C-alpha cells in the first residue's frame, strides 16, 4: 500500500528593483497542514495595496470551509474590504491619501486547495486577475490558470477591489479550475511578471523554466535573486515584484 501524499511547499519573494522588501506588494501565504496556498499581487496604482494583498491571502487561508467557489469567495472579500476601509476611515490622512483611499485597493488573487480522498490527490483553484497557477509534470505544463499565454499578461486585468460597489462587476470575472495530481507533480503559484516570463515561448524557455524549478526545489534564495535580476536586466522579465510559490506532491 502506498504511503500518504505530503505537500512540500516553499516560496520566494523579491521586490521590484528600486524598491525595498517592505514595499513589495506581492503576498504569499501557505498552510501545508490544511493543504491550502494563496498568492496575491497588490496593484501599483491602488491605495495600500500591499495591505490588501496580504489581507486577502492571510484570511483566505484561515476561513472554513475553504472559499474555493465564487459563492464562498464573494462574502469573504466583501467583509475584508469593509474592514480595510473602516481602518482607513479611522485615521487622519493627508488630503491626497484620503482621496486615494476613496478609490480603494486592488489585487490579483489566486488560491488553491488540495484534497486527498482514497489516496488520490486532487485540487481546486480560484482566481481573479493575473496571478497564475502552473501545474507541471516533469517538463510538461499540464495546466496554466487563469492565463495560459504569455501575451495575455499586461492587458489591464480585472482585479479584486476592496470597494464594495466595484466588487459585483469584478466577481463576474472569477475563474475556478479543478484537477487531479500525481506523485512528483509540481504546482507553481506565480505573480504576473514571473508568470509571463515562465509561459513565454522562446528557444531556451524550457531550459530556463527547468532552471527556475530547480532553484525553487533546492530553495536557493540567493541564486533565485540573481536569476530574477539577470532576467530583468536582459529584458526577459518585467521589473515588477516577484512572488513564486512551489508546491510538490510527494509520498511520505
Amino acid at each position, binding site marked *: 500500500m502506498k504511503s500518504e501524499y505530503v505537500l512540500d511547499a516553499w516560496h520566494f519573494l523579491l521586490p521590484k528593483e528600486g*524598491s525595498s522588501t517592505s*514595499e513589495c506588494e506581492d503576498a504569499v501565504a501557505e498552510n501545508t497542514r490544511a493543504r491550502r496556498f494563496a498568492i496575491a499581487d497588490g496593484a501599483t496604482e491602488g491605495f495600500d495595496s*500591499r495591505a490588501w494583498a496580504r489581507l486577502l491571502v492571510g484570511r483566505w487561508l484561515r476561513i472554513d470551509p475553504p472559499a474555493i467557489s465564487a459563492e464562498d469567495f464573494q462574502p469573504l472579500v466583501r467583509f475584508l474590504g469593509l474592514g480595510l476601509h473602516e481602518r482607513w476611515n479611522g485615521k487622519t490622512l493627508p488630503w491626497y491619501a484620503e482621496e*486615494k483611499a476613496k478609490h480603494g485597493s486592488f489585487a490579483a488573487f489566486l488560491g488553491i486547495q488540495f484534497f486527498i480522498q482514497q489516496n488520490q490527490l486532487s485540487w481546486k483553484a480560484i482566481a481573479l486577475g493575473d496571478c497564475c497557477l502552473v501545474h507541471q509534470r516533469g517538463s510538461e505544463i499540464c495546466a496554466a490558470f487563469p492565463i495560459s499565454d504569455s501575451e495575455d499578461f499586461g492587458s489591464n486585468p480585472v482585479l479584486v477591489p476592496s470597494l464594495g460597489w466595484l466588487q459585483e462587476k469584478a466577481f463576474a470575472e472569477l475563474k475556478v479550475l479543478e484537477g487531479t495530481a500525481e506523485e512528483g507533480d509540481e504546482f507553481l503559484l506565480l505573480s504576473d511578471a514571473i508568470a509571463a516570463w515562465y509561459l513565454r515561448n522562446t528557444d531556451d524557455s524550457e531550459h530556463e523554466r527547468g532552471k527556475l524549478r530547480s532553484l525553487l526545489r533546492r530553495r536557493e534564495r540567493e541564486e533565485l535573486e540573481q536569476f530574477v535580476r539577470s532576467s530583468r536586466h536582459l529584458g526577459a522579465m518585467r521589473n515588477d515584484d516577484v512572488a513564486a510559490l512551489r508546491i510538490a506532491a510527494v509520498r511520505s
Partner: protein
Amino acid sequence: MPYAAEISRANPTCFIFLIDQSGSMADSFGMEGAGRKADFVADVVNRTLHDIVIRCTKTEEIRNYYHVAILGYGGSVQSALSGPLAGKQIVPVSEVAETPARLDVRSKKVPDGAGGLVEQQVRFPVWVDAQSNGGTPMCEALRQAKRLIEQWVSEHRNGFPPTVLHLTDGESTDGDPASIGKEILSLSTNDGATLVLNCHVSSHASSKMEYPAEASSLPDDFARTLFNISSCLPESFRKAAEQIGVKVQEGSRGFVFNGDPTSVVQFFEIGTRPANLR
C-alpha cells in the same frame, strides 16, 4: 526602443505645462453655456495635478515619479503656480502634493453603490489660478521651457523624456514659434526626444481637429506651424487616447486644433499618462 524607460523614483520623468494666459482667454469657448476659457483651463490643470499626485500616492507617502513645471504666458512669462510654490520652476510631485495654494471644497457626483449617483463634498486642491491679460508671447514661453528642459535632460540622461503640454487659444504675438519649437523637439534623453503636445482652443464654434497624422487637411498656416512642432504620439500615449475613446492612428501628432472643453480634458489626460510606471 524609445519611450520605454521605466518611470520610478530613481528615474523620474517631467511634465511641463505651458498655459496661454493672454487676454483672450477671458472669452468663452463659443458655445452656449460655456464659461471663460481661462477658468476652465485652470480647473483642468488643477484636476490634472490632483490626478498626478494621486497616482504617485502610496498609502501616506508620495513617490517622486514626476517633476512638474507650469509656465503661464500673457502679460508676462512666469511660473503659474500660486501659494507657497509661487515662482518655483520645476518641482517634484511630493512638493506639489504637500503645498497646494489652498484646498477648495466642491460638489462631486459619485456612485452610491446602488447604481445611482449621490452628491458628495470633495476637497479640490488649487495650485493654479485663472489669469487672462496681455498678449500671447508664445516664443518667450517656449524659450523658458527650453531652458528648463535642457537642464532637466542633462540631469536625467536615462529618464523617460519630458512631455510639454502646451495650450493656447491664439497665434503668437512675439514671432514665429516654429524654430524654438523644433529646438525643444531636438532635446532628448537616452530614451528619446522631448515630447511636445499642442492644444489650440477656439472662442468660436468651429470644427475641431484632433490628433491628425498629416497636415494636408489643416485650415491655415498657424495650424500647420503647431502641427509641425507637435510630436508623433508614442504607442503608450495612443493607447491612453484609445482608452478614453479618442480616435488616433500610427503617426498621429499630439495636436488638437479648435478644441472644445472636452478636447482640453482629454488632452491633459492623454499627455500625462506615460506607461512604464514602477
